[in-house]
C-alpha cells in the first residue's frame, strides 16, 4: 500500500470511529423515554393514533393525558413540545399532569406534540441533547431536540411547502414544523398527519380552549405575549391586563393572530374548530443567534453576556439583565398565564367551567424552583407512569 492509500485508509478508519461515537450519542437520545407520573386527576392516557390511525407506530404517536374532574364542564387543552427546542412547554406539561387536581371540567395535556423533533438535535446549533431539573429524589431528565420533526421520520421535504388548505407557500423545511402545519390532512406527511390528529381530537372532544406553549428569542418581536385568534382575544386581553397588573414584573402583551399567516395554531385551530385558540410566548436567550457559549446552563439559567450586550444597543424585544431569564421565571409565567386564561374563560363562559387546583403560580415557582413539583417515577406504581 503506498503512502496516499495509507493516509486514505487511516482517514476512513478515523471517520468510522468518530461517526460511530457521534452516532451512539444520537442513538441514545432517540431511544430515551421521558417518564411522566400520572397525577391525581389523570383518568386516561390516549394515543394520538386513535384520532389519526396512520400515526400508529410512528414517532409522533403522542400521549394525550386526560385529566377529568367528573364534574360536568368545559375542556381546556394544553400543547407542549410543539417546538421541542423550547423546553418550557414539556416542563409545564409535566407539572400539570403530575400535580393538577381538576374540580370541574377536563384538562387535556400533550407534552410532546411533535415528538419526532425531540428525538434528534438541531444541526448547526450545538444544542445539548438533554436538560435536567434537580429534585429531592434525583434528576428529572428531558430530551431537548429540534424545532421541526426529524428528517429520519419525514423525508424528503418538498421543493416548496404548499400549506393545506390555504395554498400559501412556505419554506420547504416548514412541512416538518408543527406550528406551520395546522390544520393538517390525513394524506400529508408526518407532521401534517399529526396536526390532523390533534384537530380531530379538538373537534370530537369539543375542546373549548387550546393553549400552545412556546418560547422565543429576544431578537424576535413576538415576545412575552399571548397571540390570540379572534375568538380568544377577549380572554387574552383580560388575562394579560391582570397578569401585568398583579403578577409579572415584565408585562405580558397581546397580539392578534394575523389572518394572512397560515399554518399556526392561533390561526388554524380557531378557524377550523370551535376552540378558542391561544399561543403563549416567553423569552428564551438560548434561541438567540447572538448567544455566547451554548450549553445546558444557558438553557436553564437564561443568562448570557452577548445577549445582554445586544440589549444595551436596543436590539432586543425583551429586557435582559444579569439575572437573565431562568427556567423558573419562564415556566412560572406560562403556568400563571394558563391559570389566568382559564379563570377568565370561566368568567366569560360560566356554563362550561374548568377548575384547576394544585398548580403553583409565578411567584411560588420563582421562589421554590421546579424540583418539588415532580414525582419520582421509580416510587410510583407501574400503571401510574407513562412514557413520552
Amino acid at each position, binding site marked *: 500500500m503506498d503512502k496516499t492509500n495509507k493516509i486514505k485508509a487511516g482517514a476512513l478508519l478515523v471517520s468510522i470511529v468518530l461517526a460511530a461515537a457521534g452516532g451512539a*450519542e444520537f442513538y441514545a437520545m432517540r431511544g430515551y423515554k421521558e417518564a411522566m407520573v400520572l397525577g391525581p386527576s389523570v383518568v386516561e392516557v390516549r394515543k394520538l393514533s386513535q384520532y389519526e390511525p396512520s400515526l400508529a407506530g410512528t414517532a409522533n404517536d403522542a400521549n394525550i393525558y386526560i385529566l377529568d374532574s367528573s364534574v360536568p364542564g368545559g375542556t381546556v387543552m394544553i400543547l407542549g413540545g410543539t417546538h421541542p427546542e423550547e423546553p418550557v412547554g414539556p416542563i409545564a406539561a409535566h407539572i400539570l399532569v403530575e400535580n393538577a387536581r381538576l374540580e370541574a371540567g377536563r384538562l387535556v395535556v400533550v407534552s410532546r406534540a411533535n415528538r419526532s423533533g425531540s428525538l434528534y438535535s438541531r444541526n448547526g446549533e450545538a444544542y445539548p441533547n438533554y436538560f435536567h431539573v434537580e429534585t429531592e429524589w434525583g434528576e428529572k431528565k428531558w430530551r431537548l431536540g429540534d424545532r421541526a420533526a426529524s428528517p429520519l421520520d419525514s423525508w424528503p*421535504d*418538498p421543493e416548496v411547502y*404548499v400549506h393545506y388548505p390555504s395554498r400559501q407557500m412556505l419554506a420547504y423545511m416548514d412541512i416538518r414544523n408543527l406550528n406551520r402545519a395546522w390544520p393538517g390532512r390525513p394524506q400529508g406527511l408526518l407532521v401534517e398527519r399529526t396536526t390532523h390528529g390533534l384537530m380531530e381530537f379538538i373537534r370530537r372532544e369539543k375542546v373549548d380552549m387550546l393553549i400552545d406553549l412556546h418560547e422565543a428569542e429576544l431578537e424576535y418581536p413576538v415576545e412575552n405575549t399571548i397571540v390570540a385568534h379572534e375568538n380568544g382575544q377577549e380572554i387574552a386581553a383580560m388575562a394579560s391586563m391582570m397578569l401585568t397588573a398583579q403578577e409579572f414584573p415584565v408585562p405580558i402583551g397581546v397580539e392578534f393572530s394575523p389572518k394572512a399567516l397560515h399554518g399556526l395554531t392561533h390561526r388554524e385551530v380557531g378557524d377550523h374548530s370551535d376552540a378558542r385558540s391561544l399561543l403563549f410566548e416567553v423569552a428564551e436567550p438560548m434561541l438567540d443567534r*447572538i448567544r455566547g457559549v451554548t450549553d445546558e446552563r444557558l438553557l436553564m439559567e437564561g443568562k448570557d*453576556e*452577548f445577549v445582554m450586550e445586544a440589549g444595551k444597543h436596543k*436590539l432586543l424585544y425583551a429586557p435582559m439583565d444579569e439575572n437573565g431569564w431562568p427556567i423558573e421565571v419562564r415556566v412560572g409565567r406560562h403556568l400563571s398565564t394558563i391559570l389566568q386564561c382559564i379563570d377568565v374563560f370561566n368568567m366569560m363562559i360560566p356554563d362550561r367551567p374548568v377548575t384547576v387546583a394544585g398548580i403553583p403560580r409565578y411567584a411560588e415557582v420563582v421562589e421554590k424552583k421546579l424540583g418539588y413539583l415532580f414525582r419520582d417515577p421509580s416510587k410510583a406504581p407501574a400503571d401510574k407512569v407513562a412514557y413520552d
Partner: protein
Amino acid sequence: MFAHAYTILAIVVVVFLIAKMRLSTELSMLASAAAAGLYHTFAWPASGLGIFTLENSLVRHIVEGMFTYFDVCLIFISATFFMTLVKESGGVAFIVRRIVEGFRTRRAVCLLLLTLVMLIPGALTGSGATAVLTVGGLVGAVLSAMGVDDTRKTAAIFMTAAMSAAAPPINLWAMMAAAGANLPYVGFNGPLAVLSVSGALFSMFWLAGRGEGIMDENQAMKTLPSPPEGMNAFRVAAPFVFLAVLVLAGRIWPFDFPIIGLPMIFMLSSAVVLLCSPVRLKAWTVLTRTVHNLLPLVGIMIVVGALIQILALSGARGLISLEVVILPLSTLFATLFIILPISEGILQYAVAPLLGVPLIMLFNMKGMDAIVALSAMAVLWPLGDCLPPTAVVGRAAVLELGFKGRYFGDFVKVCLVPMLFVAFCCTLFLIYSKQLSFLAF
C-alpha cells in the same frame, strides 16, 4: 465570555492559516474546527463537555454539524449529474450549434442566447463551476469565433458563470443563510433573477459586445463538437420539460402529487436524459466522475457545518453575530461589496451562514426587507469566486478555456468593470430593499 470567544476565533484563524500551507481548504477548515472544539472542551469545563461521552460530547457536535447541509449537498450533486449528462449526450453542443446557425449575423441575439445557455446550469445547480464545466467550453468557442480575445472570453465565461450560480431557483448562499435565520426560502426568485440576469447580460455585452456583427460560421462550427447523429430539439428539451413538470406539479397539485424532493426530481430527469440520448451514456461513470469533481465543494459544505457548530457551541458564532449587528448600516452599505466577495474567496459557501445570518437579523431589526437584502448579498458573494485562496470558478474558467495570460494582470483586471456594475446594483438593492420589496413575490 468575550475573551473565550475571541480566543476561539483566533485559534480558528491561526490553525486554518497554518494548515492551509499543506492542506486543502476543507481539511484546513476541519483542522481549525477540531482545534477550536478541543480548546473549548478543556477551557470551558462548566459546559460539562467531553471528547467521547454518551450525553454531551465534542465528537457528536462535529459529526452532527457535518450533516447541516446534507440536503443541499444532495441537490448540488444530483443537479450537477443531470447537467453533466445533458452535456455528455450532446445536448449542449446541439443547442450552441443551433444558436450559431440561426443567429450568426445578429450578434446581440446570439450573445443574449449564449448568456441564457450559461445561466441555466448554475441556476439549476447553484454552482458556477458546474456552469463552466458543462457549457463554458462550448460558449467560449463561439465567443472566439465572434472575434472575442482570450482574456475577455475567459472573463465573460467566469462572470456569466458567477451570475448563473446566483440565479434562481437554486442559490446556495441564500438557501444556507435563510435556513440559518429561520427565513423561508420563498420570494427570492424575483430579486435574484433581476440582479443575476442583468449582471450576466451586462458582463456578456461589456466583454463580448464589441466586434464584427457576422461571425465566421465555418470557424465556429469547426471548433464546436458535433452532436451525435439523431440528436434533435425534442431530445434536448424533453429532460428540461420533464424537470419543469415535476417541479410545477408539486406546486400546482401539492395535495395530490407525491413529494419526492429535489434530489429525486433531478435523478428522474437524469433518467430522461439517458432515455432521450441518441448515444448510449455510461451513467455510472458520469456519476462517479461528477461526485469526484464535486468533492472539494461538497467537502467545504460538510466541513463548514462542523465549523459553524463548533463556533455556535463555543460562543464564537454569537460574538461574530453580535459584532455585525451592532455595526452602523452606513458602514455596511459602504463595505459589503468588498467584504462579501473577499470572504467568499477565503471561505466559499461557509460565508453564507457565518456572515449572512447575523446580517439578515440586523436587516430585520432595522426594518429592511430581508429577502431583497439577502438576495443582493447572495449575488455579491459569487463575485469572489475568482479570488484567492480558493478561486474555484475563476480557476475552472481558466483551465476549461485554456487561458494562457496572467491571472490577475489580465483575467481578473478585465472582470473589474462588470464586477463593479454588479456590486453597484447589489448595493442599491441593499440600500433600497424596502422600496424593492415588491420583487419578493
